[in-house]
């Protein structure tokens, strides 16, 4: 699996350059000759989609920043002027706002893919943990971005989320006042959120580099979950993966464009077109859809400290997944019970997301409690025990054997 051809600089200039900064060789070995398993399916295209989404958020963000004013008296107006006056401002803002949603959608699919095919298992633990860090950074970035338009939802999201820190015993109140830069959410809060919202995407870009580096050290997983054994099990990244990624990216963009051009406010909240009013809390506040499952977990627990703890734990527990899943077999294809329980888990996450958008009363609270309990049980009880008791199906001898008809398996 030593890979395919290596980079041979052709022109005199490239030969000169290669001896001084071998960047072309690095790009070639990472994105052209890089061996990818031959059996990757479309679920493997989301990593590329995520990278493109990050670039889109950064480009639209920087252009929005040319027109946006981070001040409590002007922020809302400046966003309205982006929508009405700035040339193509409406487009930039709708791409950025819907881009955040598409970014999260891609991230969740990417993570469920990893869970289904066991991509977090030895030797990909660090790769997986870097992914969890990326999710945390995205959550922080998206939250602070949502505060910037300074509408009612912005203001109250900022209030509720910063108050999560007041649950910390003893120092909680001082921490919150420090985050606010005042006695309540106000102008200092808006300005620091803007500064950090600008910064964090570049931190994300840096962690993405580590993520891809770790990926290229251990190699990609694949639907069988077994390692490539010979060059026959892999194909070069270009053209195979490049074309497959681009094709699916185009389909993804169709969905993305549909939202931008036909229902640009579908994933937002009407209340955020009302300027922030510190005197009135909207009657039904909910976060953006991509935070709803975590929000449901927060609200399921009637104790403040425990609720906030469970919210944090529900994300942090993902980092421990490589050690909580005790099965040596990676792919769900060969794990009959895990495969079903995986889909139950997906349903539980979607259920939590639905409940997070409902008022916290009556049957909704009871359902949220049950699903929250299941969410944690999946990680803490089901996965550790399943690995011990499940009888897995036999693994194929190689990737090529699993995808080629038996007669040709040896010949290609």
């Amino acid at each position, binding site marked *: 699996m030593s890979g395919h051809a290596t980079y041979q600089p052709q022109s005199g200039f490239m030969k000169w350059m290669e001896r001084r900064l071998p960047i072309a060789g690095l790009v070639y070995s990472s994105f052209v000759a890089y061996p990818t398993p031959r059996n990757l399916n479309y679920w493997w295209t989301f990593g590329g989609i995520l990278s493109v989404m990050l670039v889109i958020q950064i480009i639209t963000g920087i252009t929005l920043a040319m027109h946006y004013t981070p001040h409590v008296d002007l922020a809302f107006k400046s966003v309205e002027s982006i929508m009405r006056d700035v040339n193509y401002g409406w487009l930039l803002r709708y791409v950025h706002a819907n881009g955040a949603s598409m970014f999260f959608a891609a991230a969740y699919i990417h993570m469920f893919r990893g869970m289904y095919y066991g991509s977090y298992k030895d030797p990909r633990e660090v790769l997986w943990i870097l992914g969890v860090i990326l999710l945390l950074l995205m959550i922080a970035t998206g939250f602070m971005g949502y505060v910037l338009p300074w509408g009612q939802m912005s203001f*109250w999201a900022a*209030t*509720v*989320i*910063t*108050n*999560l820190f*007041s649950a910390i015993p003893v120092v909680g109140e001082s921490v919150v*006042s*420090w*985050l*606010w*830069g*005042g*006695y*309540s*959410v*106000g102008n*200092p809060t808006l300005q*620091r959120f803007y500064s950090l919202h600008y910064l964090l995407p570049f931190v994300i870009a840096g962690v993405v580099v580590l993520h891809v580096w770790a990926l290229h050290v251990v190699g990609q997983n694949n639907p069988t979950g077994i390692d490539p054994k010979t060059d026959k099990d892999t194909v070069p990244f270009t053209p195979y993966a490049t074309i497959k990624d681009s094709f699916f990216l185009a389909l993804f963009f169709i969905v993305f464009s549909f939202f931008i051009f036909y229902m640009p406010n579908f994933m937002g909240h009407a209340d955020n077109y009302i300027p922030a009013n*510190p*005197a*009135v*809390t*909207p*009657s*039904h*506040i909910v976060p953006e859809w991509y935070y709803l499952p975590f929000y449901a977990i927060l*609200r399921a*627990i*009637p*104790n*403040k*400290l425990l*609720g906030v703890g469970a919210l944090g734990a529900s994300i942090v527990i993902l980092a421990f997944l490589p050690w909580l899943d005790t099965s040596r077999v990676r792919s769900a294809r060969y794990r009959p019970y895990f495969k079903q329980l995986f889909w139950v888990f997906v349903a539980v996450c979607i259920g939590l997301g639905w409940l997070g958008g409902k*008022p*916290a*009363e009556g049957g909704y609270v009871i359902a949220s409690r049950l699903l929250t309990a299941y969410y944690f049980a999946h990680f803490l009880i089901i996965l550790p025990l399943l690995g011990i008791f499940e009888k897995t199906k036999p693994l194929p001898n190689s990737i090529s054997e699993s995808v080629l008809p038996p007669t040709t398996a040896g010949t290609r």
Partner: protein
Amino acid sequence: MTTASSAEPTRRDFLYIATGAVGAIGAASVLVPLIAQMNPDASTIAAGAPIDVDLAPIAEGQAIKVFWRGKPIYINHRTKKEIDEARNVDLATLPDPQPDSARVKEGHANFQVLIGICTHLGCIPLAHQGDFDGYFCPCHGSQYDTSGRIRRGPAPANLPLPPYEFVSDTKIRIG
């Protein structure tokens, strides 16, 4: 580097430790301004000065909201019924037990002044609502009674009281 593990610390060991320690203290002292700049600044603190509120226009049964330090302060001119409800409660049944008398100024039980910020996650509860005639928080459903004490829901504590005093019978100073 020497290969022998000398029992005696050398001068070089001392220099390493001393250099490291100075570096660590330097790094820590740079963090102080970087972190402290985020705390409330002088103008924010200055804007937090006390305010006076005239109570005369508040009719019985009416609640008004004023702002102090960016926080909403409820001033509720309670009816006799509300006061009785607040007083006839078995304190042992409360999540955060506190008698009503400790939550109003002596002789002014009809005026109740409190910070209208839910002790759960900071939303503003609505006055005269909920199962206990007091305050109801729309965010996650916390219910407070006519004394602003938490009765049900995720909030851990009673609505806090701002520092205030009666400067005359119909005027209070908050802060």
